[in-house]
């Protein structure tokens, strides 16, 4: 057979792969395992327990975490909703708008935030807010999150939209639907998997963000990542491991959900 060389036969392939996977996942595995440790020590195993999970709700840091979680979840929900709406409008204009001047530039502008180093965006955003005199706090975090979530919501929506033939909308228009009706009754339901996928992605990106949030949050305002960072600065306690595990679970759940929504959409289209 003259196919591609089988990469699995290369000398050292297995060892290299194992090493990469280990570097990626052993720390995560350790965090998850020790979050169930029944001991105040980070290194000594004291048996299985859920005490650190309980500690998240009842311990000394519980009020701080609860406030941070509330901020994180509401900001992520609002930011994901707003950025998804903006991204959907942008995607419809880009994919269905035909050819227009500056289309390439527009595409670059929408997706630039993916390429710009986050620290640069963070500094720029902070300078911007202080220049226009906006008090840092919940609102500044929300605005910043809406902004950087747009490209993440845009990509799955645009990809989905590109796969939908224009004849569906034309058929609707031909059958006496107005432009708005054709959008609402035909295009929107067909692009929904992309929209949901984009929303979930934006939600997770917002929930996880640290750098930009840390710059624009102002004093006394915390989201989960900044709260964790603040807590860790005073030494790592096992309750942080529990909180990290919870966040990891939520992230994995959302990304998986996003993946399956997309797959479901692809199947229904066939």
């Amino acid at each position: 057979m003259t196919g591609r060389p089988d990469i699995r036969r290369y000398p050292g392939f297995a060892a290299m792969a194992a090493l990469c996977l280990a570097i990626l996942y052993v720390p995560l595995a350790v965090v998850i395992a020790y979050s169930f440790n029944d001991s105040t020590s980070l290194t000594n195993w004291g048996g299985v327990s859920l005490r650190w999970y309980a500690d998240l709700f009842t311990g000394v840091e519980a009020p701080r975490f609860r406030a941070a979680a509330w901020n994180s979840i509401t900001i992520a929900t609002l930011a994901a909703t707003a950025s998804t709406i903006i991204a959907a409008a942008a995607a419809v204009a880009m994919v269905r708008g035909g050819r227009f001047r500056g289309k390439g530039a527009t595409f670059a502008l929408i997706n630039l935030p993916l390429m710009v180093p986050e620290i640069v965006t963070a500094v720029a955003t902070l300078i911007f807010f202080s220049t226009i005199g906006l008090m840092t706090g919940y609102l500044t975090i929300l605005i910043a999150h809406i902004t950087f979530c747009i490209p993440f919501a845009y990509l799955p929506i645009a990809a989905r939209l590109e796969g939908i033939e224009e004849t569906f909308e034309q058929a609707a228009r031909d059958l006496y639907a107005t432009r708005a009706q054709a959008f609402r009754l035909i295009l929107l339901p067909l692009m929904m998997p992309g929209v949901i996928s984009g929303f979930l992605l934006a939600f997770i990106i917002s929930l996880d963000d640290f750098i930009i949030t840390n710059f624009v949050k102002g004093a006394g305002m915390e989201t989960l990542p900044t709260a964790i960072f603040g807590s860790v600065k005073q030494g790592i306690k096992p309750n942080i491991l529990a909180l990290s595990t919870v966040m990891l679970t939520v992230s994995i759940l959302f990304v998986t959900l996003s993946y399956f929504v997309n797959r479901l959409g692809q199947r229904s289209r066939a």
Partner: protein
Amino acid sequence: MDEVVAVRRVVKRFGAFTALAGVSLTIGQKQFFTLLGPSGCGKTTLLRCIAGFEDLSEGTILLEGRDIAGLAPNLRPVNTVFQHYALFPHMTVAQNVAFGLKMQGMAPGPRLKRAGEMLELVHLSGFADRLPSQLSGGQQQRVALARALAPSPRVLLLDEPLSALDLKLRQAMRVELKQLQEETGITFVFVTHDQEEALTMSDRIAVMSAGEVRQIGSPREIYEAPVNRFVAGFIGETNLLPVRVASFAGGMARVVLPGGHQLTCPGAQTAPTGTPHVSIRPERMTLVPPGSGDLDASVERLIYLGTDLQVLARLADGTALHLRMQNSARATPPGAGSTIGVAIEEGAARLLAD
């Protein structure tokens, strides 16, 4: 008023490319009107102009006497059966069929009843609750038809609706489509590049090439009285013989065939431009003893076609000629290399305009 659609000198350009180069035609009430032509000749573009998906570069389209320029597709009483059906994948068959009625503001009760009737008309009564993806190609095609017919449009546009079906189904659907048109009395504008489809179904055919209409007529006129070389060659098989025109008056010509024999033949209304040609269908010529017919030719090859034998021959001046003889025990086929005489049936030769 008898004409439903009047297309007047319509030009459509895409940038520098001219897809329709001044098309004029009129489509009558309850007609089955076919646009026939090779790929890329502008059939779909013309249909899209009538439906309202393309703006005209020049010219006008009248629908029942009214200029429809600038009227959005949803404001034109015209429905389309798309080439790949474009059934809404997230709606059931019944919802698809009722969509146009819903947009017209019909209440749910009446419109579902009407959708049921339309499905019955296309023999799909049991399929109302299925999704389009759960139907075969032929069934999807019928749903598309029912959906476009449900709002009783003034004109139904069909863009190669049968091209995605296999041969058997295509032949069955031809008959059904024609019946449906007669039952509903709706004017059909049907696009195809399949000449057999066009000949069997149409009341009138417009033959197009390169953005122009080359001839409009009944199937019989198009086949038996083509006016130019494109139409003669595109529809069916034909022989094109170069001739010299001895006299020409009132659509009748006296022509001199290669070999010197003279023939009177009907032809185009205008005198031919360039080298004049006559078109003769292979089945309208018969084999006769050499010297006793209109032409003499030498046989090059015999091709067995089952019911027929095809005889490929060549005239003395090199022009290829093909004719048919019935495959029967009574007629002995000529051998390759032998000389044959060819008699042309009265009126079978047509003088072409170009």
